[in-house]
């Protein structure tokens, strides 16, 4: 697999009664883009629009040049990892990953091998039979990433996937994500509140404010002396990883 580009053109959307959001964005194939912005700025909404959980009232969402606006989530070339609830509590780890290959869990021997390989790849070899509640938070997100591997879609969306993990664990997860990206070259959009996450992994940062893309630029710009003012306001005290 390799990535495809993602393009939102004049996408308009509003939650019942809320203010209208409007997104224009072009992400090149195989890029890693971090979505940042205050709570309620539209990060999750943007990801949901790409994933197909929300339907725009106008505009188009194109992936790899094809308009996917009318497609249901499962038919879009997209995998998504949420902050939580990525796993079905009553199914074991292997089954949760297997669902990425067959939504009815009809797995061929080859599929099963792939599941085991993916679990080994994310460092969970030997834990196939565990139930999600027997795993730590980090391990649960690794299972979700293993499923991304077997699902093998060109676009990966992550909605604050590591928000509830500690700093060291988060760094590990980011490393894993980067390695997986190196291997598979999928296009990655990751929503995060943590500047250091963005800095560690993203080539580009998209900064959102009030349901709109406020600034787009290379990561270096946001952490350099000429960082956009809105971003500086947002980051405020969160100076971790900031120079000087």
């Amino acid at each position, binding site marked *: 697999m390799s990535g495809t580009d993602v393009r939102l053109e004049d996408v308009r959307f509003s939650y019942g009664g809320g203010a209208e959001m409007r997104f224009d964005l072009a992400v090149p194939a195989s890029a890693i883009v971090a979505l940042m912005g205050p709570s309620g700025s539209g990060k999750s909404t943007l990801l949901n629009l790409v994933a197909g*959980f929300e339907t725009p009232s106008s505009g188009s969402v194109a992936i790899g040049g094809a308009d996917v606006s009318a497609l249901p989530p499962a038919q879009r070339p997209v995998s998504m990892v949420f902050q939580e609830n990525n796993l079905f509590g009553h199914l074991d780890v292997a089954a949760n990953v297997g669902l990425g290959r067959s*939504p009815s869990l009809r797995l061929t021997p080859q599929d099963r091998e792939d599941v085991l390989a993916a679990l080994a790849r994310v460092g969970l070899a030997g834990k196939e039979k565990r139930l999600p509640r027997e795993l730590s938070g980090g391990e649960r997100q690794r299972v979700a990433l293993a499923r991304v591997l077997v*699902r093998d879609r060109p676009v990966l969306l992550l909605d604050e996937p590591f928000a509830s993990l500690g700093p060291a664990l988060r760094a590990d997860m980011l490393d894993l994500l980067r390695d997986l990206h190196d291997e598979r070259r999928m296009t990655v959009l990751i929503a995060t509140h943590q500047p250091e996450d963005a800095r560690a992994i993203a080539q580009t940062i998209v900064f959102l404010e009030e349901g709109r893309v406020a600034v787009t630029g290379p990561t270096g710009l946001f952490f350099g002396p000429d960082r956009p003012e809105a971003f500086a306001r947002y980051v405020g005290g969160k100076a971790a990883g900031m120079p000087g």
Partner: protein
Amino acid sequence: MPATRPLPGPLALAFVAVLVGGAFAGLLAEAASDPSGAAGAFDAYLGRIVRFTLWQAALSTLLSVAPAILVARALSRHPSFPGRSLILGLFAVPLGLPAIVAALGVLALWGRAGLFAPLMAWLSGGDWPGIYGLAGILVAHVFFNLPLAARLLLEALEAVPLDHWRLSAQLGMGARASFRLIEWPAMRAALPGVAALVFMLCVTSFTIVLMLGGGPAATTLEVAIYQALRFDFDPARAVALTLVQVALTVAAVAAMARLGASPTGEASLALAPRRYDRPSPAGTALDAVLIAAAVLFVAGPMAATVVAGLEADLGRLATEARVRDAAATSLLLAAAAATLSAALSLALVAMRRRLETARSSSRAGLLARLLEWAAGNGALFVLVVPPTVIGAGWFILLLPAGMVFAAAPVMVVAVNAVMAMPFAVRAIRPAHDAAAARHDRLAAQLGIAGWARLRLIDWPVLRRPLFTALAFAMALSLGDLGVIALFGSESVRTLPYLLMERMGSYRTQDAAGLALMLGALCLALMAAANRLGRERA
């Protein structure tokens, strides 16, 4: 979000609509020749019975639900003690008993010649006239509905997220605080639904009201409807009275909903809830008293039924071919009705949830809102359309086709299934909605839909509430007499039917034996549901 399973919901709704609409159509067609009865229905007599119907139903609801709150809490605070599951099973038995059996059970204790008569005579310092009148009606209604309400409220408590109990333990909340902050909000969310259900059951009470009411001053609308249809043969009047009953119930239930919170409570998937609070010795003692009192109240009339039943020649009864056939017929029809009921309920619950979710992200049209209401509440009001009315309407409809008797089993199953839906929906909805909130996006993302979703995702989570729903629906169908009495024919004789038949020809002992068998069957069903629901969960 694109709909994943758009068909079953509307189909279920259509099924209910056709069942009720068809009945009304049949009756109206017949009434067309003489519609005068409809206007004649609105007289002073109607005013009086409407007042009594609502008054007794409101009181019965209050007296059933208020103690049920305490009993449910006590049961929830002690998630494992010997006999707990037996008590929960026992609490479902009244549902499966024909009203006449329960009434005789109540009278065996509280009647003029009842077990407590000497005590009551001593207390009142005179002759004990027996518990006839409003008091008798209330006692019998509480006997039926307190256990039901307690069980449903307990389900609500068991859906409290594990984290809340952890938090409560961690913060050192006392019994009072955890009641105010955790238990009460959880039960309050379920309260309007539970109260509405109990209210509807009491509004439609018939045998209990007449038998224990002491005289025609205690008359419900249901009696008037029965009279209009059976004795006066006035379909127009019957339809008018039924509409009055439905309208009044809708209004009363709407008023109740205002008193409580939205019926969709927050629920979790903690299937085996653990509580971390340790009730104090005094609290434990109080809980024990509460539970014991409720059990005694419910078990008393049942014990009377058992005692009477044991006097029957059970050995002979059990070997009678007629009894065996009736038991088999009962179980078969009840199983079919319960399965259909659970399927219809699940479809409606899923549809309501889907519409509710859709509404939050887009402006829903009037139609969508109407459908959502119909799926959520509307279908439940079927409970106050008397089975006699549905039966009679369809009878008229099926007559020209000459298929009345052939349709008997189908009608019995269909009507019982729909009548049991209010129970099934209450059991299924909290768990379904909580699971949906958690799984919908993930399932949509992975493309898990239709049969695969049912098998892999919904079934394991809904297994327990589905079995509860099945057991409740089966118990209810087992005890049914309304539908079967109208459509019953040679081929469809159920246990309650046989019971009434024996009672109607002097064989009261046989009838008592059959009542005992019915009760035992209900208890066995509850135990089975409990076991099947727990497996693998």
